[in-house]
């Protein structure tokens, strides 16, 4: 166990185990956002789920690390770390099994208070921003901040901007937003500092669904530009509980 920081990109030799009390540790493949390292994070996550090691409660994947939580009364750090170390040489990062989603997004000015500013700061027309965003295919590195919020990488470089200097206190539910190299959708009304460029009528979280949260880490997401009329039609179906969110999954 080393406390030195690593800048690894997923090489097994440089994996670092970081201590998080007596109920968790992190398996760190990289300390920055890195797609190759993330693939190893997700591969370890899959291997761990499959192994059903005694005492493991759950694991939280992020950009470069997997946090493994355990019950210290059923296992120990030493025992569990040894089992995880044995898994590392057998990881299959290439065998990703995420789903692909197509999410309707209305980019009308009413839903996109920051679209004009983003366009201006990047020397583009608003239509170019819409096109750039809706043509992307995004990879969900991780979820966090609130239930169902996904950090999706793969935003066109022409759209990169730092976060807003003054975060909004209230971002409307369903807002589609960008910041740095990422895009996201706000599952709830909440505070938020990203640039709002559209809105989706679908719900990333619904309590009554068998799987209440739509997205998972490792999934991919595309956006389908829709008119205000189509937004309203889907929104009405969602409100009436008649919208099948499973239909957003693209068969591939």
């Amino acid at each position, binding site marked *: 166990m080393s*406390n030195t920081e690593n800048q690894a990109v997923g090489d097994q030799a440089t994996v670092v185990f970081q201590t998080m009390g007596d109920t*968790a540790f992190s398996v760190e493949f990289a300390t920055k956002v890195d797609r190759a390292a993330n693939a190893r994070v997700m591969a370890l996550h899959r291997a761990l789920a499959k192994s059903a090691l005694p005492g493991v409660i759950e*694991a939280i994947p992020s950009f470069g690390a997997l946090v493994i939580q355990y019950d210290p009364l059923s296992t120990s750090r030493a025992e569990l770390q040894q089992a995880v170390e044995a898994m590392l040489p057998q990881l299959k990062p290439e065998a990703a099994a995420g789903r692909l989603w197509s999410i309707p997004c209305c980019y009308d000015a009413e839903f996109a208070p920051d679209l004009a500013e983003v366009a201006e700061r990047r020397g583009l027309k608003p239509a170019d921003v819409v096109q750039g965003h809706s043509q992307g295919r995004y990879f969900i590195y991780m979820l966090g901040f609130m239930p169902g919020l996904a950090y999706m990488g793969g935003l066109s470089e022409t759209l990169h901007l730092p976060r807003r200097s003054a975060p909004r206190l209230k971002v409307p539910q369903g807002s589609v937003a960008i910041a740095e190299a990422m895009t996201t959708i706000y599952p709830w009304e909440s505070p938020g500092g990203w640039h709002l460029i559209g809105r989706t009528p679908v719900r990333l979280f619904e309590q009554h669904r068998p799987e209440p949260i739509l997205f998972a880490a490792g999934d991919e997401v595309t956006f389908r530009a829709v008119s205000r009329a189509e937004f309203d039609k889907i929104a009405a179906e969602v409100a009436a509980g008649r919208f099948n969110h499973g239909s957003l999954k693209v068969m591939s």
Partner: protein
Amino acid sequence: MIRVKAPGLFTTLQDLGRYGAQEQGMPVAGAMDTLGLRIANALCGNAQNTAALELSYMGPTLVAEAESVQFGLAGNMAVEWLPADGGSPKKLGSWRSVTLKRGEALRIGVLGEAYTYVAVAGGFDLPPLLGSLSTYTRAGLGGFEGRQLRENDALPLKSVTPGSDQELAADAASLYGEGPVRVTLGPQAYRFSEAGTQAFLSGEYTVSKEADRMGLRLEGPVIEHLRGADIASEGIVTGAIQVPGNGQPILLLADHQTTGGYTKIATIISADLPRVGRLKPGAKLRFQAVSVAEAESIRRAQEAALKSLLGGMRLARPEGGLDLDALYTANLISGMVDAATGADA
């Protein structure tokens, strides 16, 4: 059914937490003081993970609207039994169970700690979300309608035949431990200067007024970073001690977000989390570093002590006895002193 006559300051349903969906951003939530929850449940014959009412600072008044309802009480608090005919209230001790008949009520006043627990024999008849009844109020999820209790709420109960009323035969205080709060260093201890780590481990910190189920902001010696407070977001565990740019630590507790992008200098060991969860604004604390192996053995010892405490439960003595009265007074006074400190902090 239980009718909420007065809701208390912030009363929610909590069990041992909602595990399994943190990777999708779902916080664990659950009891701030898991020992208190487990004792309250044991006192009324429930499994330890049964959801109970978590009280905060000022308790509720609960009316039994069933033939009989047995409550399990854990934590230091002022408890009164109100007869159905409106007669004069009778003082009860805590750390016991008590069975109420239809129309009788339990009135709970000032708490000695930030959080205490009232369990109900059989538990609440409510639908779990992702396997748990814990309330996460920030997103309006779980528990009773995803929120704190309000006046006149009707809480449905599972039907059971309660056993006889029990009480603890020994003081629960020793379970919680005392002295410095024990931590393991990491996961980002290497991002702090030696002086910063030294300040953290030798200084005295005070719980600020910004204290809730999500976490406690502390005030004390500044913890110096080596180069900035930002990291790529990663998973967070309950008890993580996050240090943002101002160098003042934040203890992340039950309702913490599942991921975060600030450096974390240390993590509170699991045996000391219940004690920290009970702290009020104004409380002072120090930290002491231990190894993971030490933390594991401290936790095993605590579990053994809990088992022995629960194994030694005995039939409750009649209400209002002299001993209980004395105990009650002592608890109430210490509770009031703490509350006053909190208000001034």
